[in-house]
């Protein structure tokens, strides 16, 4: 069965420093991977996705994610964090032969000034 794990409940980063939010997945076929962000009292917003091709995917708000097939990971990164990046981040995976999107439990990102 497909699954996705976000091993950190919370990540704390100082403003201006690089940030990484981790995600690992398990599927039997080819994965399609997504990152969504949820700001307080808001719905989820799409950040980026990996379908095929270049392992480094660029998305909204300066975020990027690197697909690593051997480590079954899809970590979210940003070179320089902003206080406004503070939010809840969700990784999700879907297997190409299965149409159900499976979500991680989320990681709370806190950027301190």
């Amino acid at each position: 069965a497909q699954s996705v794990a976000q091993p950190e409940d919370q990540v704390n980063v100082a403003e201006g420093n690089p940030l990484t939010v981790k995600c690992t997945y398990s599927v039997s076929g080819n994965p399609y991977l997504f990152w969504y962000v949820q700001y307080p009292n808001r719905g989820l917003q799409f950040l980026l996705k990996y379908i095929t091709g270049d392992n480094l995917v660029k998305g909204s708000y300066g975020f990027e994610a690197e697909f690593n097939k051997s480590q079954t990971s899809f970590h979210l990164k940003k070179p320089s964090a902003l206080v406004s990046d503070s939010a809840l981040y969700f990784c999700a995976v879907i297997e190409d032969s299965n149409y159900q999107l499976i979500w991680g439990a989320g990681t709370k990102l806190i950027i301190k000034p």
Partner: protein
Amino acid sequence: EAGVAQSPRYKIIEKRQSVAFWCNPISGHATLYWYQQILGQGPKLLIQFQNNGVVDDSQLPKDRFSAERLKGVDSTLKIQPAKLEDSAVYLCASSLGQRTTNEKLFFGSGTQLSVL
């Protein structure tokens, strides 16, 4: 472009009462989803519609939850009777095409339900 609209924004009810949520997806989007998001967890799919047909309702507690999407546009999700464990945020999302596979979802702001 108008986003996914949901109402009400908040709802407080007592256990065993009934409640209904409404969702208006983005115009032209064929697929509509209802998710339940319990505090501290990722979204859990309750039901997925493609136009006005059900694609997946395997995780919908059908003894108390029901949903419909009349005319393939608006949708309502109902809980009757509500239990304490139904306290959660109910998110509606829509996507343009027929399948989830590689499309992004557009989410509404959600309805926060508290069952007392």
